[in-house]
């Protein structure tokens, strides 16, 4: 296949996917639409993390922290922060807080990216992990600003679009959950297209050069400091947008909404979805959101024998299933779903343009 044909197939597939996303709510229940909205949110965070880890080679085990920064930014702006002694303002319409959530988290990403320049590989993973572990207690510590352990409740605020009434948009009435779904997925698809644009050009090439060999990248004139910090910033901004949407969809933030496990699940998501690829991340997001439910046998219902469902509903049962499924996936699809796509593409096409480099 020529590069042009590959790209054409990519565009057609993307258009098909957009159409699929657009009609999906008509075929599923209101509750399911809300669940799929969360899949969209995870997709945004995974796109961001993959830019940093999959494309630039910098492992982050702390991306939940950037989501938390975005989430708290949105929540504080929406709630107006009057209850907590501050005076940010009298509340802001929810959707306008999303770009600000991305901006604040992005700046935090740059700020963290600069000291992180000294670290690579495992050390960076541990440093980011330390941030993710420390975050909940830090949020609790600054109670007057963040609401401490009890968090910030946005439920029922007038700034939340469609909290109580249906949302009218483009002459159509949407239920609250459908509105959330379209909001999250519109941003997710824009984020997807944005990531594609960033990664296909000069910046993306520089990222990949840093990932594949820092020494070679430097000797070809790629500034490590600049591109690593940039990758951190973009990646954190994506996580911040996801966090802002999370706060809006959840109508509540507290430290427990962004636990260490979230950061770990995001990393799991990009590895399952496929490092250094974008389309597989949709499956990564589905995995991250739905496997905890499926592991209880709840969603799969009558597919499984009663005895199995009984055992997996005991405490600890779902975790066993989750862990084992995760390990098996790493055995079966070492390069994630994205890697599987590439393999199928390789088998279908005659020859690849260039050999796909295994990241990290």
């Amino acid at each position, binding site marked *: 296949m020529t590069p042009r044909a590959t790209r054409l197939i990519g565009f057609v597939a993307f258009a098909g996917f957009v159409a699929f996303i657009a009609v999906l709510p008509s075929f599923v229940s209101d509750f399911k639409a809300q669940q799929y909205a969360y899949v969209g949110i995870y997709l945004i965070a995974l796109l961001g993390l993959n830019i940093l*880890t999959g494309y630039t080679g910098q*492992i982050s085990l702390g991306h939940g922290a950037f989501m938390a920064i975005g989430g708290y930014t949105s929540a504080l702006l929406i709630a107006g922060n009057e209850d907590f002694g501050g005076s940010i303002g009298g509340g802001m319409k929810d959707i306008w807080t999303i770009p600000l959530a991305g901006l604040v988290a992005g700046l935090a990403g740059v700020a963290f990216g600069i*000291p992180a320049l*000294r*670290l*690579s*590989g*495992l*050390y960076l*993973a*541990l*440093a980011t*992990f*330390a*941030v993710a*572990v*420390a975050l909940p*207690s*830090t949020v609790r510590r600054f109670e007057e600003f963040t609401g401490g352990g009890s968090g910030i409740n946005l439920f029922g605020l007038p700034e939340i679009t469609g909290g109580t009434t249906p949302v009218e948009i483009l002459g159509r009435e949407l239920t609250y959950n459908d509105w959330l779904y379209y909001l999250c997925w519109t941003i997710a698809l824009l984020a997807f297209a944005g990531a594609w644009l960033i990664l296909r050009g000069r910046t993306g090439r520089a990222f990949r050069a840093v990932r594949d*060999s*820092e*020494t*070679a990248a430097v000797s070809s004139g790629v500034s490590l400091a600049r591109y690593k910090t940039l990758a951190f910033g973009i990646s954190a901004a994506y996580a911040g947008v996801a966090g802002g949407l999370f706060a809006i969809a959840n109508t509540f933030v507290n430290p427990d909404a962004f636990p260490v496990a979230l950061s*770990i699940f995001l*990393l*799991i998501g990009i*590895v399952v979805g496929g*490092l250094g690829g974008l389309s597989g991340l949709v499956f990564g997001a589905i995995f991250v959101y739905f496997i905890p439910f499926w592991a209880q046998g709840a969603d799969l219902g009558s597919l499984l024998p009663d005895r199995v469902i009984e*055992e997996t509903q*005991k*405490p*600890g*049962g*779902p*975790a*066993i*299933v*989750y*862990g*084992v499924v*995760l*390990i098996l996936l*790493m*055995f079966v699809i*070492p390069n994630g779903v994205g890697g599987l796509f590439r393999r199928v593409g390789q088998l279908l096409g005659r020859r690849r343009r260039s050999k796909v480099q*295994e*990241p*990290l």
Partner: protein
Amino acid sequence: MVVAAFADFMQQVVSGLAAGAVYALLALALVIIHRSTGVINFAQGEMALLSTYIAWALITHHDFAYWPAFVATLAISFAGGVATHRIVIRPVEGGSVLRIVIVTIGLLIAINGFVLWQWGGEPRALESPFGIDTYDIGGVVVTANDVGTIAVAFGIVLLLWALFQFTKIGLAIRAAAVNPHEARLVGVRVTWMLALGWGLAATLGAVAGMLTAPTVGLDPNMMQAVLIYAFAAAVLGGIDSPVGAVIGGLLLGLLLNMLSYLAQYEAFDWFSEELRLPMALLLILLVLLVKPSGLFGRPEVKRV
């Protein structure tokens, strides 16, 4: 007054060393696996947790006395560690590091789930083998448990050191970790040596778990904080250095207890028990930023 303050101080030193000895054991386990497999084993804490529950079950349900149960648990843990490497880690070795990391995270989740599923979430009591006696040494009161913990940890570390230093198998394990290709050429069975490394790490973890349970209480979340302290200890000492892990663990235990002790004075009154964990993380960040190779590690050398 001064004497009393000194005695109080010394008590904190001893209990700090006891806590640090546990961190040191688990940090040593992390270092052994990092040297051989090149990853941080996120499941190390949960493997230790499982071992501790096995010891508890042997004592409670199978009428073992403490020390026979202790030895049996070490044997089971060793076999479990070897099996973990052969079954779970080996298939993903040689690929991307992240894949191995995710597999160890999968193990973490699965083992924690298994413990909860098998034994339930309620706290269990694993009694200290050293009793609840206290000794008064020149005004300094130390508990038998602290002394016993330090003694057992040092004994295990010495045994391990002797194994690595004076036996052929120890030499082979080191060779396999340092240079697998050349080790294979001279007849070392590298994959088995790596598996033995995992077995030894699991055994160390088992000791750490069994020494932690009497003070902290045995429940499915017991090892999570300990694992993070062990991370901090390993980073402090240098993630590649066994000596560093031991000293890092002891220093960390001392440091945290010193802060608890100093919290009675005005200059340190900001310190409270819930800041223990963030302090350890702050230490990780500081060490990584100032001297990423740690106190005893060799700096990373990059080759083109």
